[in-house]
């Protein structure tokens, strides 16, 4: 029954600062907003697409997706109303498209609407999305937590340049979701109330949501599992032994799910030598020695992936040698990849002529010592990884200097900061990222030559390692043309292999996400393909 279970307390150790997902890139903001704003369809915990506000997912099979792959027709469920009681119509969907694509607006999710030529509304419940060219994956706009639907009535005056200054709208969006915003304190706490007008009269079970932000993962985990103050803690990036000991608290349990995230070491294909000056660093290639196959192969061989996985993620991690390790079908198996082979690595390097010529324990490549600056974000597990990798590489005569940067700076993408992962002012760096849904095509696009970040693109661009290979580009182009699932898998695996064997990066661990839920909280289904709070309407209290 609606609103019968009192309050649910959710803690995110990063605090949301805005509730309009079109104006922010932060997961915390998007997931907080997902309690209120909903898309037409979203991914479920298996990565499968499920209709949400739409009546069904349009496909080629049911005719919702045109044969020429340029038109997608959504049918909206009947009887959906906004939380203010007004009906939800296709006009709102069209408005959302216009809102985000307004050139003055600075929409953060513009990529979702990249190929969209137009959005038409033949009637109140029908939305037709037309693409400017055939697309193999049309489920980008209005799908997933990153592109939900805004209410036209509320945001009509907030388009274009007005978007950022509409504080009220951005803080208190009206949505169709199970909850409405009662109070928003930026960077601190949000109070939600059950939506009176939610389409399922029995949901949500909770009357209010207390969404707290800020702090650190340890405290969040402790608050759920040890003290029981909170019911749900998001994304606990903690060492497995720490999580295990928290579980001893008996108030809650960790929930894990495997998504697409692979913790990997990116190798810099350009020369990050500080002497080159800011505009030339990370632009001019090649790296003095990192592109030597012997070098990156030896580095990979020196790694004990199962150990890393165990130390860093426990049950929530699996060693991997794939760049895209999930969904599993796309992953590749590499012979001997999980075995550490220091001797072999040393032999490989010796053979390739990288020897320690001056006896300081560090090999030289063309006269320069093989010394690497290794950066990553500040996070206990990553620092442990760094230490382990440093040690292993030192055993094969490669010296590493560690550096860690605050996550908000490292992932902040600030073109002015020298410390972003995109700028890559280091030899190697470690992080993971994920993609939405289960189709890896656009993610594989991150290895294309034209996605290289550079000053010209304000340092934006996803090909962070500056890996550039004609063969790879060609193969990826092929992938975009092919529909046959099996063929897609084959090409994907091939792309994976190319990336691994040519030293784009060194995959380490396919890591799952761990969150924690209170033992008294029912209905939690961890979804790594969409917002973790995707089914919050189904949550209830176990007595």
């Amino acid at each position: 029954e609606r609103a019968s279970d009192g309050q649910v307390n959710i803690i995110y150790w990063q605090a949301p600062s805005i509730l309009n997902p079109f104006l922010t890139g932060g997961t915390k903001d998007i997931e907080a907003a997902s309690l209120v704003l909903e898309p037409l369809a979203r991914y479920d915990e298996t990565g499968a697409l499920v209709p949400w506000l739409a009546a069904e997912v349009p496909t080629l099979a049911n005719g919702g997706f045109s044969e020429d792959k340029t038109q997608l027709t959504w049918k909206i469920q009947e009887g959906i109303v906004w939380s203010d009681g007004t009906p939800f119509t296709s006009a709102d969907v069209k408005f959302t498209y216009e809102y985000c694509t307004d050139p003055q607006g600075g929409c953060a999710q513009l990529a979702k609407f990249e190929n969209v030529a137009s959005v038409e509304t033949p009637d109140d419940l029908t939305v037709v999305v037309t693409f400017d060219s055939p697309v193999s994956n049309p489920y980008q706009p209005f799908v997933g937590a990153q592109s939900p639907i805004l209410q036209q009535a509320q945001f009509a005056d907030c388009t274009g340049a007005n978007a950022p200054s509409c504080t009220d709208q951005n803080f208190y969006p009206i949505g169709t979701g199970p909850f409405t915003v009662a109070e928003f304190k930026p960077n601190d706490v949000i109070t939600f109330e059950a939506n009176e007008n939610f389409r399922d009269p029995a949901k949500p079970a909770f009357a209010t949501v207390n969404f707290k932000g800020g702090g650190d993962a340890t405290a969040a985990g402790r608050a759920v599992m040890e003290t029981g103050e909170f019911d749900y803690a998001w994304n606990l990036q903690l060492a497995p032994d720490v999580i295990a000991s928290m579980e001893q608290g008996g108030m809650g349990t960790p929930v894990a799910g495997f998504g697409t995230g692979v913790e990997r070491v990116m190798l810099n294909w350009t020369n990050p030598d500080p002497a080159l000056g800011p505009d030339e660093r990370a632009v001019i290639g090649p790296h003095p020695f990192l592109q030597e196959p012997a070098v990156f192969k030896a580095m990979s061989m020196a790694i004990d992936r199962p150990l890393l996985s165990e130390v860093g993620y426990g049950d929530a991690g699996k060693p991997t040698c794939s760049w895209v390790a999930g969904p599993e079908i796309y992953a590749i198996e590499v012979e001997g990849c999980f075995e550490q082979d220091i001797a072999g690595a040393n032999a490989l390097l010796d053979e390739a002529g990288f020897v320690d010529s001056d006896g300081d324990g560090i090999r030289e490549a063309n006269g320069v010592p093989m010394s690497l600056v290794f950066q990553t974000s500040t996070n206990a597990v990553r620092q442990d990884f760094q230490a382990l990798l440093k040690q292993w590489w030192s055993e094969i005569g490669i010296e590493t200097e560690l550096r860690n940067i605050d996550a908000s700076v490292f992932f902040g993408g600030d073109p002015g900061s020298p410390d972003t992962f995109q700028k890559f002012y280091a030899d190697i760096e470690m992080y993971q990222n994920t993609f939405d849904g289960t189709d890896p095509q656009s993610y594989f696009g991150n290895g294309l030559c034209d996605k290289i970040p550079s000053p010209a693109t304000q340092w934006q661009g996803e090909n962070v390692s500056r890996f550039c290979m004609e063969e790879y580009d060609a193969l990826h182009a092929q992938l975009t043309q092919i529909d046959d699932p099996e063929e897609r898998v084959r090409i994907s695996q091939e792309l994976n292999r190319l990336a691994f064997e040519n030293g784009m990066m060194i995959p380490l661990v396919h890591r799952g996400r761990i969150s924690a839920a209170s033992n008294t909280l029912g209905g939690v289904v961890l979804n790594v393909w969409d917002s973790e709070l995707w089914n919050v309407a189904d949550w209830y209290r176990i007595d």
Partner: protein
Amino acid sequence: MLTFIARRLLLSIPTLLFISFAVFMLLQLAPGDPMAQVPLTVPDAVKEKMREALGLGEPPLVQYWKWLVQVFWIEPKVLIDYLTASSTLFSWLPDTALYQGELRVISWQTRSPVMDIVVQRMPQTLWVVGLAYVVGVLIALPIGVYSAYRQYSVFDQAGTFVTMIGFSIPPFFTGPLLIVIFSVGLGWFPSIYDTTHEVTDWDSFVVQLQQMIMPVMVLALQTTAQISRYMRAAMLDNLGADYVRTARAKGLSEAVVVNIHVLRNSMIPVVTVIALGVPAIFGGAIITENVFKVNGIGQLLITALFANDLPMVMTLTFIFAVLIVLFNLIADVLYGVLDPRIRYD
């Protein structure tokens, strides 16, 4: 006295301008771009527009001037409007409408007026950090007095020992330690501060007390350590003074001699030390706030910093500077009030 205050206030204006200018220029030096949060896909032209909307791209001096106007002209107008419209104290005044929708100081991070957020954060900071200061002082004073009165006694030695330990243990250790003991082990207090909690009756007040007690104690430990040292030194200075002997010769009891005659004199330097410590309250206690999730001013500053939210950082820093200058003045005035020998003209 009044002219003294007025003159000092007048003098503090150039000081504040100087400070704000220096801080502004310093922040300009910092690399960073508020467009950081804007995703990669936004075209350059759009970004340029957004940048202009935020007042970037102009020479620093112009930006500084704009900021000054916003802080000293537009924000006060908003404040007056608010006071005359909805505050309990001044709402009898006719509603003013000074604020005509000019651009206020906008946070780049949340796209909302900085002042609104600051006002929102104030209560937490005041409740916790402020109360911690008060508690710390209240504990420190008796310790200082008694340590001095029984100099080199066991109490004195133990006091020194404990306060120095309190001083040397960082809050990021004491905080979690208390949490492990009292929240996890005993389950007495919550480990996470609820900033939405409102005190309406006795029970909610008790809840408020429970959630404040640990952060307050962690912070108070530091204050206690310092203030009790000052108090002890001041008491020692005064206990040997001639007037103490006079007071005793009058046949006054020890309690009166120490707690009235000596204490009153010893408070003079200590009160100024206390007053000078007040601005730090508003600066927040970043680490303690972080540990207990008291999202106060400290947390605001650090998130703003990491998110490159210059208007927020600048405004907070400036508020801090204002408080420092103000409390410097208050300390001086208090000195004069407490010590009749000081004359201001």
